Structure formats: C-alpha cells, structure tokens
C-alpha cells in the first residue's frame, strides 16, 4: 500500500461521523443479506414426529404435517401450527413473514397499525411492513451497487479514451455524450414499460445506459491533464503501449477524482430507483421496494406508519451514504490531510 493510500485511510478514520456511518451502513447491509433467515414465513428448523425438516430448503406438502391437501404447506395456518406444537417444535425467524406473505389469519382489516404481531403494521394488501423494509433495503443497495460498478467501468472507459487520445476522438465523443444526455430517460422507461414488464435487470440495463454520463466529464478532464505529465511522457519514451500507459500511469491518478464521486453516484442510484417505483415504472408489482411503500403511504394517509416508515428508512439510508461520501471526499482532498511524518528538531 502506498504511503498516500495509508494517509487517506487514516484521514477517513479520523472523521468520526464518516467512520460510524460506514460501520452502521455495512452492518445494516450485511444484516439485510440474511433477510431470509430474519424475516420468513417458514420455520428455520422443524421437528415433527421425531423427524427433522428444513422448510427453508425443501418444499414439503401439507400432508406431511397432518393436513388434508397435498399442496405447499402454509406454516402460518393455525391448524398446522397446532399440529406442529403437539407433535414436535419449530424454530421461527424473528419476523414470521416474508416480504410477499399475505397475512390471511389476521383479524383486523389492512392496512393494520403496528402491534405485537406486525411491528411496523401491514400495508394495504396485508403484508408485513418491517419485512418489506428489510428486503427492500437489500434490493435497493444491490441495485445501486451493480449500477454504480457498471457506470464506473463505462464512464472511466469512455472518458479515459476521450481524454487520453484527445483530438477527433474527443470531439466526436463529446458531441455524442451531449446528444445522449439529452435523451429523456423517464420517457424511455415509460415506453419500455408498455411492451415489456421491466424487471431488475431490465431497469439496471436502461439506467446503466445513462448513468455513466455523470462520470465522463471528470474522467476525461483527468486524463487530458495526465497525458501531458512528465512521467506519462517518460512511459511513452519507454515504448509502453497506450493501453498500459492508461491503465498503470494515468488511471491511478484519475481514480482519485472519480472515487470521490462514487458515493454520490450510489445515492443517486438509490434515489432514482425509489422514484421510479413510486411512480409505478420501476420494479414489477410484488417486489419489496421502498418507493412502492412510499406510494402506499401517499395513498393511505389514514395509515401514517406506511409513509413514516418509508421516509425514515430512506432518510437514514441516504444520510449514512452522504456522510460516508463526505468522509471519502475529505480523505482524498490533499488539503485535509496533515502530514505528520516530518519533524524538525533542534540538536
């Protein structure tokens, strides 16, 4: 690790708010990665008449547990639960509802206010809000991660080629980016939604086509600057081919400005996905989505727990990301890094 990198890490760690945010966000994300074990409508482990069952992995018919129909077992059915209690035991996840479980055995009408059965209440279709938030958080972050990584690769490649080769390549590239960025993304998505059902990957693909635009200018400017640096010229004088010069000598310098931008790209991706879901042009119905939850909150003003949950989740998630982003930006900013490596002494 180069001394500069080490100093940057130290600077990031010295920023308490950014460090705590990073910890919190990572913890939340890792936790949400195990959503299936935390919120699910099937027991984790089940012992019935002396035999072990793993409902999470294997799909058992109801007849196994004393039911009458050879259909998938509904473990929330009071009759089945009774059977299990009499003949064995079950270990349930913390929240016994998955994001798509319709709670059929509830006595109150949906949306139901928070109580001991549904900690954050249910939405207007009778699904557990907390469970949907956990799964929705995971989906948003995963979407943003893939989108950010993809835009980073595309943006750095396109911007790098423009900046490094300059001249006609740059001119044509610049004009193309200008035209491309003029295309209305939202309309494209609406048109798309009219002939395919846009799933996770469809949305990702479409968004990817446009999200790299934000990076191109920065990367291009960095490459333009770096290609006239002395050591890049020295690398040319050693006969290094262009792609190696770009990869080894120009990119590492351009990455500083680029990486500072990444957290904000990430926040933007989450915001966009939420907005699309809110408008109904996003993920297919039934997907756990924070935008859809916000839309439900808007449509059910008499059920404030929907809107408040959506707002709080988004606010916490985006604030954490912005704090992390600020910390990164400061860590990469040379003026923020004090050099504690030099000491001048007398005698």
């Amino acid at each position, binding site marked *: 690790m180069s001394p500069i990198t080490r100093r940057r890490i130290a600077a990031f760690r010295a920023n308490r708010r950014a460090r705590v945010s990073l910890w919190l966000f990572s913890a939340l994300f890792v936790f949400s990665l195990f959503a299936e074990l935390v919120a699910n409508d099937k027991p984790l482990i089940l012992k019935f008449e002396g035999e072990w069952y793993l409902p999470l992995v294997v799909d058992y018919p109801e007849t196994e547990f004393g039911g009458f129909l050879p259909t998938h077992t509904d473990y929330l059915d009071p009759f089945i639960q009774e059977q299990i209690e009499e003949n064995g035991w079950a270990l349930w996840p913390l929240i016994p509802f998955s994001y798509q479980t319709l709670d059929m055995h509830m006595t109150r009408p949906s949306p139901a206010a928070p109580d001991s059965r549904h900690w954050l209440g249910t939405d207007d279709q009778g699904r557990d809000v907390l469970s949907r938030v956990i799964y929705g958080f995971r989906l948003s972050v995963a979407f943003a991660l893939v989108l950010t990584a993809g835009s980073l690769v595309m943006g750095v490649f396109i911007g790098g080629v423009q900046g490094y080769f300059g001249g006609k390549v740059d001119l044509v590239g610049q004009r193309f980016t200008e035209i491309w960025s003029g295309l209305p993304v939202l309309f494209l998505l609406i048109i798309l939604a009219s002939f395919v059902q846009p799933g996770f990957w469809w949305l990702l693909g479409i968004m990817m086509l446009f999200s790299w635009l934000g990076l191109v200018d920065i990367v291009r400017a960095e490459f333009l600057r770096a290609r006239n640096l002395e050591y890049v010229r020295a690398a040319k004088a050693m006969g290094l081919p262009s792609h190696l010069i770009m990869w080894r000598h120009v990119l590492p310098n351009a990455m500083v400005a680029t990486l500072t931008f990444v957290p904000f790209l990430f926040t933007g991706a989450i915001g966009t996905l939420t907005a699309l879901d809110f408008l109904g042009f996003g993920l297919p119905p039934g997907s756990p989505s924070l935008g859809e939850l916000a839309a439900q909150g808007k449509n059910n003003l008499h059920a404030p727990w929907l809107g408040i949950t959506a707002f709080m989740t988004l606010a916490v998630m985006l604030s954490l990301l912005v704090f992390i982003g600020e910390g990164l930006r400061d860590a990469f900013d040379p003026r923020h890094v004090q050099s504690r*490596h030099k000491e001048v002494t007398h005698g």
Partner: protein
Amino acid sequence: MAEHSAQQAFAPSSSTLLDVKHLSVGFDGSQVVDNLSFNVKAGETLALVGESGSGKSVSALGVMNLLPDNAQVSGERSLAGTDLASLKRSQWKTILGNQVGFVFQEPMTSLNPLHRVGKQIGETLRLHQSLTGKAARQRARELLEQVRLPRPDELLDAWPHQLSGGQRQRVMIAMAIANQPKLLIADEPTTALDVTVQQEILALLRDLRDQHSMGMLFITHDLNLVRAHADRVCVMYQGQQQESGPVSQVFNHPQSDYTAALLAAEPQGRPKPVGRVQPRLEATRLSVAFARPRAGLFRRQPAPFCGRRAH
C-alpha cells in the same frame, strides 16, 4: 581524447545511427526550432548546447515523436536506416525504450509517484526483454548498482518521493540504459548531481558507449562537460543551428559570433574574497528526521537509503 574520437567521427564510416536533416518544430504556428540538421554515429557522443529556451529539449523530443499533439514536426529523420517520420504508432514501440533510451530533463516529475522504483524499472524490462519476477528484480538491482546508487535493495522498494533529485535522476538513467539501447538521448542528465557523482555517471555512460558502440546525444549547457565528454558539438541559439563540428575545432576556432560569445562568457579566475559582513541566515545544530515504518510482527524495519546513520 576528444581529438582522437573526432577523427574517428570524420572517417568516412557508414555507421550513422541517427540522421536528422532540416528539422523544424512549431507550436500552434510559432516556430521553435528552425532547420536543424545533425547526426549521431555509433560509438560517439554529440553534444547539443545552447542557452535555456533555445530548443534543445524540443528538438530531441520532436525527433522521437514525444511532443504533445499541438506540435508540428517536419524534416527528415532516420534511425539506423529506418525513416522515423513515416513510422506508425505500433512500430514506435519497438524503437522507444528498446533501441533508443531517453533520460528526461526533469528528474522530479519523470517518475510516477504511485509506483515503487523497482516496479518502474521492471516495467521496461518486462516490455522489451520479457523479464519478470525475480529475474527482473535482479536486473533492476544491477542497474541501480551501475548508476552508483547506495543500498539498491531498499531502493527497489522505495517510493519516488523518498528519493532526492539526484537519486531520481540516476533511477531515470538506469531505466534508460536498461535495454542497452543503440542510441541514448540524455537531456541534461547530471544537472541534479554533485561533481563527483556527475563524473562517475558520465564515465559510466562513456563505458557503455564504448562497450556497445552506443551513440549518444548529450544535451547540456555546461561547456566543461562538452569539452571532456563529447566528440562533436552542435550549438543552437533561438531555435537555429549556429555551428557544428568536432569539439576541438569549435572550441578553438569558433565560426559564429554566438559561439564565440558563449565561450567568452565562461567564468574565469576566482571570486573575490568576501569581507567581514554580518551573516544573514544562520543554522546551528539543525537536524531533520523522517518517521519510518515501524518494525512489526510481520515486517522488519527497512534500512534508510542514505549512507547516514538513522536516529
């Protein structure tokens, strides 16, 4: 010695390595080098001298296609029979770094601050000699020894910012001679070095030149170095060639007024002793120390690169 080589240079030999005729370089319309012609033969040193800004660096860079895109280079230039003016991008790669070594003028900025010294030397070895891993490291170490750098093993793992200007300049020279080029272009290669190291480096370059009959284009404005190390000299003034010829001839019987003025401007005699004056700046018992990586469970502390004792 200069006379001897000069005669060699004038012998009708066909071993011209670099031949440049009517070279002109302009930047966006303004002419910086005008109608410059010179040649370098195998085994000889041609010195390119002239005042600052006279176009020495630009000429050398222009010949090797290393100028930015806004430069217009015209004129004939050929390296060992290969026409350089019409060379394609891909063909340059076999020439640069391999047949031609280049030592840049700016030692402070010519090394990538993000790569360790060993890696940067290894890069050229891998590219042109396919040396990797241990072999490349071994060769890089030899090169550092050749340019008289102390503690080459530690230096291989040093970052450029940990080196002094003179140390960096020697690393650059090591990189330039790594592939035993036919032609070495050295743009003021010893400006950051003290006189003793300067003499050692120039002697090293002379040895290399004699052993491998390498041609050398030596750019400098130090006339003493020209006298001691060059066979022929080409004098430039404001982008134009003033005169060229064997060193002894140019120095003893300068043809152009500028050369005569240049020679006359060389300082002579001794400086007058300074009288009793108050000191303006005083330093007593000053010491500077750099924090170095601590020894840890899995790493031992590397030794400093300089010969001095660490505190």
